[in-house]
């Protein structure tokens, strides 16, 4: 590929070089820090209520606890979201939908397992119709409790933000 810039002639695959340079730059400080800081304050969970913990999830977005001040805005479109909350029990029928939703979300994406049921089944541990979320999805943060209080949800968001800012979760692959 050949292209010209101010009369000079550049030879080589400029597109690939640019992509390589961007990937190199985005993984370097301080760009990486700025990027992670930005991601950590725009965690948009998708409206995907799997079970009863949704009642407390809704309360955490409501006035008293107001998780929106942490950059946490429950949103409708899957394609604009980067956070999936597994709210409580995941039944077999719902697990199928959870995988579809997860696959449609753009990278980088995170999963939070909310409630005892999302950890190991909780009170429904011996039910015939449940799936343990860590078997099908990569869960980054677990919240214990049945149901967890809204404070615990806020705590989980802060933990996830710290994890992102430490650079543990977001990785851009160089293609």
């Amino acid at each position, binding site marked *: 590929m050949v292209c010209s810039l101010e009369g000079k002639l550049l030879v080589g695959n400029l597109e690939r070089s640019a992509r390589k340079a961007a990937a190199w730059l985005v993984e370097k400080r301080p760009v990486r820090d700025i990027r992670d800081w930005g991601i950590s304050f725009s965690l948009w969970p998708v*409206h995907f209520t799997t079970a009863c913990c949704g009642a*407390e999830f*809704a*309360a955490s977005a*409501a*006035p008293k606890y107001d998780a929106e001040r942490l950059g946490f805005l429950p949103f409708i479109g899957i394609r604009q979201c980067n956070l999936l909350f597994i709210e409580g029990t995941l039944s077999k029928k719902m697990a199928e939908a959870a995988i579809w939703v997860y696959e449609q979300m753009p990278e980088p994406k995170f999963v939070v397992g909310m409630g005892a049921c999302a950890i190991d089944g909780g009170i429904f541990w011996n*039910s015939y119709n449940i799936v343990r979320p860590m078997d099908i999805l990569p869960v980054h943060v677990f919240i214990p409790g049945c149901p967890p209080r809204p404070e615990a949800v806020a705590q989980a968001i802060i933990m996830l933000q710290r994890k992102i800012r430490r650079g543990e979760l977001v990785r851009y692959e160089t293609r």
Partner: protein
Amino acid sequence: MISSGERELELLIGPQHPASGHMRLVAKVDGDVVVELRPNIGYVHRSVEKLAEVKKYLQIIPLVERPSLADTTANNLAYVMALEKLLGIEPPERAKYLRTLLAEINRIHSHLYGLGIHGVMIGSSTAYMWCFGDREPFLELAQELTGARLTYSYIIPGGVRRDLPAGLGERAERVLRYMENRMRDYFNLYFNNPVVRARLEGVGVLSRHDAINLGITGPNLRASGVAYDVRRAEPYAAYPELEFDIVTEEAGDSFARVMVRVREIVESMRIIRQVIRKIPEGPILHESYEKLIPPKLRESMKQRGMVKFPSVFANLRVPPGEAISRVEGGRGEVVFHIVSDGKLSPYRMRMVTPSFRNVILFEHLTRGVRVADIPAIYGSLDYFPPEADR
């Protein structure tokens, strides 16, 4: 894809969607008109009834609360009432009043939850924020009484778990006065809002005849002009001694269903005031259980107002037989049927929840409405999927 000559389009709504999740609506639409709408339920089926057969009687109390997390007291109370019928014990008077108190607090915050979710569905974020914000004072009252925000497990066989904390009466009065003032704001901004009226009035009309024939229950039934309430039809707890009206509306549309909930909040506040005024002194646990607790613990239990479980509760044996109990929860009538064969777990436990009985309305009310009316109807039913799926 529409092939030539075909007019109907199948539209899938959910299970990932903005309104209180966990179900899929399969709509057949012709242009903007819904020809048929079938709810696809079962996304939250967790086999509560089957699990009850391997859990001990006291372990079932938290289990039956989980399906309807916004309205836990109704399930807890109905289960314990059926259990008490089998055991042949009657709770003391004070415990009955405390049960009523918690049930009414729960009814208020369950209705506010429903109204808030309805607000989200028809696109009014203000309603959601206000309802969920005003729900918190009631949750705090319940928390002070029981120690938990939503899953109280407060009602146990033969009584309740904790006594009324000192000064709760005044704090409850303050919360009720606050809510009464807020009610005026709600009407000014939301219920009398022309946009809300236009979206809800005359939408999803359920006639009195259909409501009875389909076996609808709770506020959805009363919105169609049927004055049926289990609290009056088959009184339980302290309801026979309290004064309250059954709220009914004649119109049967979405707005009437919302109005019934709003006016029931006012009625519940009236009941809470009466309970706090009338509550008698006395024990909060049945004497046959209280005498099983060692004397020293009994003393400290009376001082602290918290019940120590007698050791018989660990392996509670229930005489063979069966019992049915009915309770009016926030969403309607909750029925529990327990069959006991004298072992440590029930032989069979059946729970009939109001949402399961109301799910037929999705199909019935949405025939021939516009697509945009689906959320207005869905929200007004106050349908809670985990409760229907169990």
